[in-house]
């Protein structure tokens, strides 16, 4: 296909070939602009219809009053995926690096019984409900490390405790006071 050429017209005086080159450029610009944008000559021209982000291998430089969105490959404990990042201008004291923040994770579980979503920073959130007195929760996708696990009796103070397994994708909820009829809600955060 004919590619956009910013270096035309050349070779004047003009003939038909020059007109064709100019037309080709205008045509190419309109065609390329259609990608991700409302097309030219449309009442919404210039607005985005979608944003397709090509994978970046280096993080963008943010050196002014703007934020930068981009996508990059992430290797987690369970998969390799393309995730959305944002980098904002530095405002923290200089001892803290202005790292980009990962906004997404490639997995959610809305079916349960072990529900799962994510929060910014590369953290996976798991939650659910079990019946006491002893339950071992197996997390999927497997986090690298469980950094927080909370469990409580739904209706009574049941002296609930949690113990993370050495494999870092399982933890056990125990309650000396709960019976099999007592629901216990749990919540866990892991690093991806």
């Amino acid at each position, binding site marked *: 296909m004919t590619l956009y050429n910013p270096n035309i017209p050349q070779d004047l005086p003009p003939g038909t070939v020059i007109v064709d080159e100019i037309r080709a450029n205008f045509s190419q610009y309109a065609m390329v602009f259609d*990608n991700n944008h409302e097309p030219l000559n449309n009442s919404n021209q210039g607005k985005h219809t979608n944003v397709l982000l090509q994978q970046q291998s280096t993080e963008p430089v943010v050196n002014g009053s703007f934020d930068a969105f981009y996508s990059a490959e992430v290797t987690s404990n369970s998969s390799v995926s393309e995730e959305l990042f944002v980098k904002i201008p530095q405002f923290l004291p200089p001892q803290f690096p202005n790292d980009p923040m990962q906004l997404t994770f490639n997995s959610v579980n809305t079916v349960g019984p072990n529900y799962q979503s994510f929060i910014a920073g590369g953290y996976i959130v798991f939650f659910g409900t079990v019946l006491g007195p002893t339950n071992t929760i197996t997390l999927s996708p497997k986090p690298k490390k469980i950094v927080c696990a909370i469990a409580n009796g739904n209706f009574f103070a049941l002296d609930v405790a949690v113990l993370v397994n050495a494999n870092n994708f399982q933890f056990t909820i125990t309650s*000396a006071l709960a019976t099999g009829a007592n629901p216990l809600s749990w919540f866990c955060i892991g690093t991806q």
Partner: protein
Amino acid sequence: MTTAPYNPRTPLVDESIADSQPEFLQNFGQLFNAFNLNHVSLSDPTNPGNHNVIQLTELNQGRETFLNEVSIYSKKVSDQTDQIFMRYPNNGKEFQLTQYQIYSIPLITSGESPNIITLQESYFSFLPGGIIVYFGRVNPNSNPFNIVLNPAICTNITGVNVCPIGTSTNTNRLFQPNVNVTGNDKFFTDVILSGSFSFINPSNQYYVIFGNI
């Protein structure tokens, strides 16, 4: 590539292409250069027009939206910097998607090497809408014990939950944690955990704390 400004009024009616050649070159060059920002190049043979990054320059106020549109933009947040916002259709509700700069929190320890004890392992993240989430684990060495909120940017604590680490073996309901909060005149800095830590050994606790920024 040319750096002359883009001229939307070229060529003039009475100009030949030869007369307008410099302006054509300027304009095509400017379109090319401007499009190169945030996009795969116009002259790329495979993915011209896709984005490689999206730089959102700071707006003074939320962007107007019409029916069936959502808008994502950046806006300065007081005492911070430019953060990402989203606005729903028809100039609908605006909410803040990003809240702060996430970074690694150093461990809080006591003692000297080789007898260093980790008192607190801290993490934080955020939820859209101005919510900060502190989480991690503490190993209380006093009663009461302060869970340090870092960064101390929380103006209102909305929820605190702690859970002992270990195996529950006691049926006497000895664990009766109390939580209190303290801070300076603007931000909360600590959640004070007190009560019986003795029914489980060790007395480590996981915690999760929600608050407003």
